[in-house]
């Protein structure tokens, strides 16, 4: 290729130095036998051992998983129903509704967190698991909504007509045609939601109760009392989980053909 530009290389350099290098460092230090992060004391799994014997950390992990599963499940159902309903609706206000459905993605998390906190205390909800699940489900809905909506838009309308023509009722068409065709989008939307929920700190801090810790909150508070390499091990574990989820989400999202 003639006329090569250096721009992609510069971009790549930034990406590696700012994003992937720190990640690599954290991963490397999670295997560091030395307590001091400035010294390399040899390879060791000791921090991982310590990590898994920490009761409160395991408790926080359990909470995070429960919240993640519940909130991504709720978001999956509501987001899907919303997208499917909006696709059928012939409302004038459709554009606006779709816009405000996805707007929360752009609202800064800190504002969402404060809003949730104010609202939940107004509603007199006990802060803890319940508020966490509601809050997480709320900010996860737009992700599912957007993915399902994009998939629906790609489905040939004549498929629905063909099924109707062959004798299927509206419900049957939904179950036999629409649902199977959008299910990859639902699943990848939910996986994305799960990942979002699992690593949320900002919103969670505002809506958690005094005795409920999620994993990210736990990490954050431990940071204040000084970094031990155990945190590095934890970060590595979470990174791995998130990575697996996101890759899975992408993979499922692309697998089946919608159009033949």
């Amino acid at each position, binding site marked *: 290729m003639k006329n090569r530009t250096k721009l992609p290389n510069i971009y790549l350099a930034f990406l590696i130095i700012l994003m992937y290098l720190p990640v690599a460092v954290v991963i490397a230090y999670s295997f560091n036998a030395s307590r001091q992060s400035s010294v390399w004391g040899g390879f060791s799994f000791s921090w991982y051992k310590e990590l898994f014997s920490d009761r409160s950390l395991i408790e926080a992990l359990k909470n995070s998983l429960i919240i993640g599963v519940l909130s991504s499940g709720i978001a999956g159902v509501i987001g899907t129903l919303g997208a499917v309903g909006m696709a059928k609706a012939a409302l004038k206000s459709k554009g606006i509704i779709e816009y405000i459905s996805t707007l929360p993605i752009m609202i800064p998390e800190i504002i969402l967190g404060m809003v949730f906190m104010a609202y939940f205390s107004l509603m007199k909800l006990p802060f803890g698991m319940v508020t966490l699940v509601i809050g997480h489900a709320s900010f996860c809905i737009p992700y599912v909504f957007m993915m399902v909506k994009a998939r629906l838009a790609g489905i040939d309308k*004549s498929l629905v*007509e063909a099924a*109707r*023509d*062959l004798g299927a*009722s509206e419900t049957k068409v939904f179950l*036999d045609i629409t649902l199977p*065709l959008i299910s990859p989008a639902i699943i990848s939307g939910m996986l994305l939601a799960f990942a979002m929920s699992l690593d949320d700190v900002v919103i969670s801090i505002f809506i958690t109760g005094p005795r409920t810790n999620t994993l990210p909150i736990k990490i954050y508070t431990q940071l204040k009392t000084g970094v031990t390499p155990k945190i590095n091990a934890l970060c590595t574990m979470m990174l791995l989980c998130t990575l697996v989820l996101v890759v899975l989400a992408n993979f499922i999202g692309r697998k089946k*053909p919608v159009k*033949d």
Partner: protein
Amino acid sequence: MDTILELRNITKSFGKTEVLKDISIQIGKGEFLTLLGPSGCGKTTILRIIAGLEEPDGGRVFLNGVDVTEAEPNKRDVNTVFQNYALFPHMNVEDNIAYGLRIRKTDKKEIAARVAQALELVQLSGYNKRYPHELSGGQKQRVAIARAIVNNPKVLLLDEPLGALDLQLRRQMQMELKRLQKRLGITFVYITHDQEEAINMSDRIAVMRDGVFEQIGTPAQVYDLPKTSYVAEFVGNANLIHGRTIEIKDGVASIEAAGGLVKATVRDKQPVPGMEVTLAVRSENIKLYTCSSQTGIKCRLKEISFAGGMQKIFLQLEDGTEVVSSSLGMNLAFEPNSELYMSFDANHGVLVDL
């Protein structure tokens, strides 16, 4: 003939464009009716209204004497072969074809038998487990035919069902479909813009233009006795000659055209002497002479072409009208740019647009 399907004064607009303007037709039980017309004239829209996928703005649809204008598509005993196939991408060929039968809770053994039969009909036996994206365009089209026909509906709507097939397969499928239609007594409403296909297969042809039926009749009627110049050109590739009626004697009109006199048999509608008329004559009925006779029009030979065993001679009349004469085999008696006389039998001349 019992009527199974009736359209009564159907109108339909999309936005400001009137797509169907007062469409009425009665279709008999077991009839093969073809909608023939150019792209965009509203053929698919008519099928969609019959299937219930589109609601007409005005008019009624009757199926078996029952007004189904407002009925849901799944409540009509009608199946469609879609122009774009519309196969379910997440189901294999077998499941696609069985879909209608499964909804009707047909017995499993019967489903298997009927699916196999349908696949055989469209010459795709052994393709059961293929997915639509693993099929060629023509194969998809045949699966779409099988999926509709397997349900044995009262009325089958086919939207250019053979459009993607090569000539040979197309001929075979034409015969298969026609035979099946006869055997099962299914009513076909069939769309094509291939005149030959329409003429070969149909009991009746409805020639469409811009949302209206120009003429409805048997293939012989629309081919030999077109009512309008549009039908004459579209179905019979006929030549149009303009002239003035001089006299009408013994059921034959004498017409003065640019460069001479021609005769045409008068049929249901009579022209009055002195009237400007248009006459349609098909190219194979035009005879050419080198010298003048009693009837005949002077013309100039522009070009000769030869294709598919047919010789086509392009002529120009004195008023600039282009006329084509065709004949089997080669005839090299004429030279380009020579002056000739063309004539035809009175009963081959059809007065149109009266």
